């Protein structure tokens, strides 16, 4: 049954991916005026413009251009950077691991903050700790990651000299320095997700606490920690997993600013750099990969969701 669920879910991705491809392809055609002129500048000669138009395939019919581009993409060819001719796939293969590492650290820091905060808040409802967590979560939801990043630099780097203000040290060079260089960026991206998860976990736990099976457990004399960790938490985690999955897209957005602020050479700073340099081929490749990450994360969230609650698979089967 799980295999059928998985197959159906993967097949559902095909039309979405196709439309995503059309949208990414059309990015180049949204450029006001002739993309070749915009890329080369107004001073370019007609011959250079014509040569670039030919190189980019802009002199061919739109549908032809799209299928040609899609054929290359499917084969793993995202074109070459307009700046130095480096294959976009090569650039992305260098940049993406850094973003994924930052994303994973940010997500881990969110979970480390959100789980105890949400549990304490729900278990001690109405206490000072609950109010404190609620207010901090509200602040975490409203603070823009780029301002938080700048404030973290000001406090921990400029004033206390505890952590670096920016830059990235590869893991292969020094695992410790790598971690140190990513602490502030991970925190600045992760705070919002932590706030969302903590609020969701608190609400879900409070809902579960009212359920009959919890009352039964209480009547059977199960201790409070036993009820919380063995019964309530597992049931409350499901909505948190969903929200966490949905938040990953937002987390990826926040990473764009964070990478620029902390000068981290990841996917986000690549997107901004390619916009500034009018390297639309690299921009196309980067945006496509960002969308693919979100689609994949959504798929993984659905799978995690169905593993936590097998009723999801059954519901899918019944709808068929």
């Amino acid at each position, binding site marked *: 049954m799980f295999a059928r669920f998985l197959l159906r879910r993967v097949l559902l991705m095909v039309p979405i991916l196709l*439309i995503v491809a*059309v949208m990414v392809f059309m990015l180049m055609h949204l450029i006001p005026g002739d993309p070749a002129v915009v890329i080369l500048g107004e001073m370019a000669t007609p011959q250079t413009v014509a040569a670039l138009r030919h190189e980019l395939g802009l002199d061919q019919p739109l549908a032809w251009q799209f299928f040609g581009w899609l054929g290359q993409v499917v084969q793993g060819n995202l074109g070459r950077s307009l700046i130095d001719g480096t294959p976009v796939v090569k650039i992305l293969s260098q940049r993406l691991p850094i973003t994924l590492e930052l994303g994973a650290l940010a997500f881990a820091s969110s979970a480390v903050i959100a789980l105890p905060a949400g549990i304490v808040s729900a278990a001690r409802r109405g206490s000072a700790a609950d109010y404190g967590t609620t207010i901090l979560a*509200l602040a975490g939801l*409203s603070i*823009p990651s780029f301002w938080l990043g700048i404030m973290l630099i000001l406090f921990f780097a400029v004033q206390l000299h505890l952590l670096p203000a920016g830059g990235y040290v590869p893991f292969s060079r020094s695992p410790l320095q790598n971690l140190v260089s990513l602490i502030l960026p991970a925190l600045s991206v992760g705070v919002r997700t932590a706030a969302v998860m903590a609020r969701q976990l608190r609400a879900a736990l409070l809902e579960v606490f009212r359920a009959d099976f919890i009352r039964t457990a209480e009547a059977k004399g199960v201790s409070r920690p036993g009820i919380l960790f063995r019964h309530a938490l597992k049931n409350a985690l499901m909505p948190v997993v969903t929200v966490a999955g949905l938040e990953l*897209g937002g987390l990826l*957005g926040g990473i764009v600013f964070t990478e620029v602020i902390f000068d981290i050479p990841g996917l986000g700073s690549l997107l901004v750099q390619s916009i500034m340099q009018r390297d639309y081929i690299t921009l196309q490749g980067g945006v496509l990969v960002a969308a693919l990450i979100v689609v994949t994360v959504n798929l993984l969230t659905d799978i995690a969701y169905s593993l936590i609650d097998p009723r999801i698979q059954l519901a899918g089967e019944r709808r068929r």
Partner: protein
Amino acid sequence: MTPGRMAVRRFARSRLSMVGLAIVVVMALAAVFAAHLAPLSPITQDYNALLQPPGNGHALGTDELGRDELARVIYGSRVSLEAGVISVGLAVAVGVPLGLAAGYLRGAFDEVVMRIVDAMLAFPFIILALALAGVLGPGFTHAMVAIGIGFVPGFVRLVRGQVLAEREKDYVAAAEASGGGVARILFGHILINILAPILVQAALSMSFAIVAEAGLSYLGLGVQPPTPSWGSMLRTAQGYLSRASWMAYWPGLAIFLAVLGFNLMADGLRDALDVKQQL
């Protein structure tokens, strides 16, 4: 008591909602009366007062060109509010009719619209806005269009879901039986009954729009100098953190408060209007 009055009473009883409303009202007043409230012009440069700390005739200090920070923060509220209203307005104008039609007509139209919506939701909102603003070119209008387009799928999905529930109700069957046209049923009957969640979504989107505009301006893709915008002020401030840290406090605090205000208002509206759907 009418449902509307009950909602207003519920909203007014919530302290946090009223705090949110107060922040939004103050921000709106600052934006509208910026010329009267700002102590100085936000673009006048004073080379005798470069990087002045708060005090000495400049309550919030000055920037690297001697411009008054308070004046720039006040005028910045105008850009942020305009950004929110225009981009959310655009998303509502496009997303609501599409969602209404998709939910009511169903069939092939619904399928096509929803697959496009699903695909748009595959792009992280900021990356979609960034890419659109990037290809359209820097500027306030382009940034607003980019942010507004980013919000459209959220509104389509929300409205379609609401319509699917409403179209089965008796009042819609009665309107159909009395010979009302599709447009009349959608806009004259169904839309009125699903305004509450749209309102909540709009308030929530305002806070995202303010952050997105500030973010695009921070990257140099939004409002262009010398017009003051909180995002571009932050970008400049980052270069002066060790010499003039106050430059980073005020625009960031302004964005934080504006976002907090709209978030609290959206929470309050959701409770007051009894919107159960998770937005």
